[in-house]
């Protein structure tokens, strides 16, 4: 099955760059995983999918410390961020997020840990296959900020020793949840 093959490649590639890929059966499983793993203030941007699935209340209900103030007021190093994503690329283990909303940018850049919910139906073969949806995102002339994220933040600037967690999140957890959305324009 093509999709199974893509999930397998994606999981391997993301694993190789230090992301944790967690297969979940339902969104509830993913919520429980985040509740078990997240520490501290958690930024959950209110994107279309987050609103549709009431992600904030689900996580709040599971005991996550959901940030209720402006994310800029959440401290310089908040504990976690939880987002959905537009799509992913199997060959490099990359998740792609339309981050035009500042809250998505903040939730994915400043926290110590980033959780991404990915519907396996959104996994594309490779970055060449991503050209079409990228062009759709960049149609028109509205300002746009799209982030490819491949594993946690890293550096090798001191003695070429790979060190995780330089300026971005130290950990990236990708939660595979089926039947969330197969619309590549939706986050």
């Amino acid at each position: 099955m093509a999709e199974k093959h893509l999930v397998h490649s994606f999981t391997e590639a993301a694993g190789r760059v230090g992301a944790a890929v967690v297969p979940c059966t339902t969104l509830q499983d993913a919520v429980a995983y985040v509740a078990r793993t997240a520490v501290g203030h958690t930024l959950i941007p209110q994107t279309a999918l987050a609103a549709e699935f009431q992600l904030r209340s689900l996580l709040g209900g599971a005991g996550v410390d959901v940030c209720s103030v402006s994310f800029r007021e959440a401290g310089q190093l908040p504990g976690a961020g939880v987002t959905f994503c537009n799509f992913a690329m199997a060959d490099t283990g990359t998740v792609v997020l339309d981050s035009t909303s500042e809250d998505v940018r903040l939730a994915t850049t400043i926290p110590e840990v980033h959780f991404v919910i990915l519907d396996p139906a959104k996994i594309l073969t490779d970055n060449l296959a991503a050209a079409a949806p990228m062009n759709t995102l960049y149609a028109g002339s509205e300002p746009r900020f799209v982030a490819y994220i491949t594993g946690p933040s890293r550096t090798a600037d001191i003695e070429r020793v790979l060190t995780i967690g330089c300026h971005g999140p130290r950990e990236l957890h990708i939660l595979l949840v089926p039947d969330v959305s197969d619309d590549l324009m939706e986050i």
Partner: protein
Amino acid sequence: MAATADFKKSVEDALGKPKLSEALHLFGDAYLIARENAFRGLDFDQLRTELAAIKDDVRERRKELLAQFIANAEAAGSKVFVAKDTREANEYVVHLAKQKNAGLIAKSKSMVSEEAHLNKALEAAGIRAAETDLGEWIVQLAGQRPSHLVMPAIHMFKEEVAELFSKEIGEPLEADIRTLVDAARKQLRKDYFDADIGLTGANFLVADTGGIGLVTNEGNARLCATLPKVHVVFAGIHKLVRSMEDAIKITRLLPRNATGQLLTSYVTWIRGAVPTPGNDKEQHIVLIDGGREALYESPVCRDALRCIQCGACANVCPVYQTVGGHVFGSIYISAIGIILTAFYEGLDRAKEITRACIGCRSCTAVCPANIDLEEIILHLRQQVTKEYGMGLVKNITFKAVMRNRALFHNMVKAASKLQKPVTQQKEGQPATRVIRHLPMHFMDKDLTQWRDLPAVAPRSFRDLFAGIDQKVDNPRYRVGFFVGCGADFVYPEAGISLVKVLNHLGVEVVFPNSQNCCGIPALYAGDTETGVELAKQNVKAFYEADVDYVLCVCPTCTMGVKRDFVERLVDDPVWSQRAISLSEKTMDAVAFLENVLKASDLLKATSAARITYHDSCHLKRGNDVWKEPRALLRATGYQLEEMKNSDRCCGFGGTYSFLSHPQISRQIAGDKVESIKVTGVKTVAMDCPGCMIMVGGSMGKADPTVRCAHTMELLAEAIVEKPQGQTPGEKQF
């Protein structure tokens, strides 16, 4: 020309710090493995041909594409400023900062801001620039400049970093990398929040979207673009691509070739002033020419602007690995740095590093944009020679002596007699005569302290050839032999062996006596006039000989005959035609044996000796020949044991190792000696008289029991004389 005293001193200082060179060697080795893994399943040559085509089309349509980019960016709310030079670019940013009352600018990596000395300009205006890329921050705190395009602080060690960070942060930090990265994370986080302006570079300016692309690992560019209210993009105009698809294609090459990553942690695409809660975000894009338009207009050098700044040309460069980027570079380092320095900072600033390139072509082999870096550098060296001269020794040698074949050859003969008092029989190899010490002790450090010099042979190949009785009935081919100076006067045995092997396989050898030096030494020194004259002499000699093929036992000569003669004589229709026809039938002897004669099917395995093989730069990367000698040596029974980095330069580089940079050569040769020693093998095969001078000479001092031989010698030794009356081609050899 020898280096100036200042440059020589900087080389000596670098050589006095072996720790840096060791680190760069380890990095270079690890890089090759990571890169190979990253490209598995992909066709690098196809990808780089495609990238070159994209960038060439951008060059041709740059005015139209730049206008398209600007229109699209402005439509999304960006303010775009085109700066004709870095001074204008700096002024724009300083003016903007003053307008915004900005005291702090958080910067992510932008090489063009290094080129512009932007931080200095900001500082002068009372504005603090905080570098947030870890490597850039280290370099900034140390008051230095980056020594590598991708890893700015690759020359520093954790102890030095700990000292810098402790001082900056005001608490003692352990020299532990994890601790240091965490400290930087905490310290710099404040700067993103406090900064009034965030400044980033751009890896791409995407014309059809009006957006930029940023390829990063640490996540600092995203923070710089997000947290401050104003985002400034500071980029060179050559970052232009036509479309999102172009940019995506480049992301397939850039990280793989830079660090061996399939993709960096972050690739960020930003168009326009993205909204903030107050909706008062601004984006300013400063596009900088700064010499790029002039480079686009240079037909010989313009390919350099295809560069995507992966830094690979440094990673594989033996000179970079020996002296580091602060010596071998300016703002931009290594091979691409030589070219960009010449155009962005002026030829004067580039003249030393132009001569510091050893010409091994390893940069050209790994360049993802298919830039023939070595050829462009060669051209620049010719410019340098025109402007600044090439020094007395080279001047007399090339202009007065080598152009006159009779004088040149008589001088060599005289030298073979004059050297007698200093030559000795090589230990363990009584047949080989070498110079172990020169009486001129003041030159000894550069010339014989660390290597034996080969003695000029008592009789040159051209003298010996006259005495060979070639018994070839009904020859399959008549081939011309372009002997080259090294095989003619120093290693005639390579040529004699070639004749033996060819005769054995039913091929007759023709030796036109009026042939002369291929001219590459003169050309590499920047003397084109001598190059043209020598090309004519040789084309004439072989045109008149009327042979089926022309063979060389020196791959540098092969490149000279195949590539350079054609280029040198291009302006003259008659000579040009002759040069092309000579080029088409010229090849390395091993390539002829294997690819034309299929000799590895014909030769018998008679030897069982263990050997190792050194790939000459010009054989592998100049002529794409490396499988052939291995096939031939294995066919004759030799047990081939590969050495580490067999295709890394031996340090010869012609006059480089004698006049330009003997001390750098010494280090590079030392690496080769180590690789050979590790194999424990006593015979090293190679296909280049230049390498034989270098490897043979250095091994001679390190372990005289190791023999360096031309592949032709080993093949000739393995051949059992052909019984009379047999026809070639019947597997009876």
